[in-house]
């Protein structure tokens, strides 16, 4: 009698406490702005945002699992689906869809319909190389690593750079099997 995994994150999103969306957007904006001042190089800011996201992701996975009742995903396809439909909805309040599967099912794209992080944002000429939402790719990478999936997450389309959607490419590098962690003579 395994609990049934939810099809969408709507119910969970409705049941948790929310923070004001504008406060959230502006706080994130302030963080990125401060990083740009501190680190000066746009590349460094991208890296830092990714690292921050990763640190969030390794913790977020436990909250996700505890609240969503997802107990296992059969394969990477289902995992991607759950991230897009339940994960994004639960934490960001927006739905996402999964497309562009490659032939062997190890690489796909998550397309965000709406992105609350980028309200009020325009990239100035000096920051054209900035992946403003790079924190999200870090979150996905960190969370998946905790369930033993090594992935590579990159932005393919970014509305701030003139594309028509936000598209996150998730590539499964390898799945790490569970092994006995102690050696015999320890």
């Amino acid at each position, binding site marked *: 009698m395994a609990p049934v995994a939810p099809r969408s994150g709507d119910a969970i999103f409705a*049941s*948790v*406490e*929310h*923070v004001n969306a504008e406060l*959230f957007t502006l706080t994130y904006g302030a963080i990125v702005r401060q990083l740009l001042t501190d680190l000066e190089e746009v590349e460094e800011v991208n890296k830092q945002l990714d690292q921050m996201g990763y640190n969030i992701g*390794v*913790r977020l*996975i*436990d*909250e996700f*699992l*505890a*609240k969503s009742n*997802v*107990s*296992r*995903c*059969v394969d990477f396809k289902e995992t991607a689906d759950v991230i897009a439909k339940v994960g994004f909805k639960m*934490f960001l309040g927006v739905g996402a869809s999964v497309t562009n599967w490659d032939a062997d099912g190890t690489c796909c794209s998550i397309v965000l319909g709406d992105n609350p992080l980028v309200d009020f944002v325009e990239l100035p000429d000096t920051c054209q190389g900035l992946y403003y939402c790079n924190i999200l790719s870090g979150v996905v990478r960190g969370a998946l690593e*905790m*369930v*033993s999936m090594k992935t590579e997450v990159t932005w393919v389309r970014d509305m701030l750079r003139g594309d028509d959607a936000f598209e996150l490419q998730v590539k499964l590098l390898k*799945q*790490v*099997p*569970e*092994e*006995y*962690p*102690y050696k015999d003579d*320890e």
Partner: protein
Amino acid sequence: MQFFGGSDISPSPPAPTASGNNAHMMYVFNRNGVCFLYREWNRPLHTLNAQQDHKLMFGLLFSLKSLTAKMDPTSMDKGNLGVPQLPGQGCSFHSFRTNTYKLSFMETPSGIKIILITHPKTGDLRESLKYIYNLYVEYVVKNPIYTPGAPIRCELFNTSLDQYVRSIS
């Protein structure tokens, strides 16, 4: 989005059927076999030092899990005994009972293992373990000072855990 402290844990804990002091001890392990929480409420006998005790417990669970998966009569895809499994692969046991104690076990896909040892007459504790996992998320994972993988020293977590465990029947 929630901030720690003051927020209610959802879902609310399953209602206890009778109150009593039934829990002996609890372990929490991560995937690497690190025991980052050990609580003891009622344990008259210690035969090993703490480190050996934790290792033995982890080894017991690990072997039992691969044995139960190997014996599964319903699933086709299983490797040889002892072959590493991917998380979520194979079946898993959730409790066993001896004449002197009962061990309840829960493992999350993120590799957290929660083990609760209680009086042999206690009922199904799967919901209780899930609730303890929620406590862990609320008070430990969301604690910004806590480093993942380090021993848990969160007063708030320990007190709410003690309080909850007392209600388990």
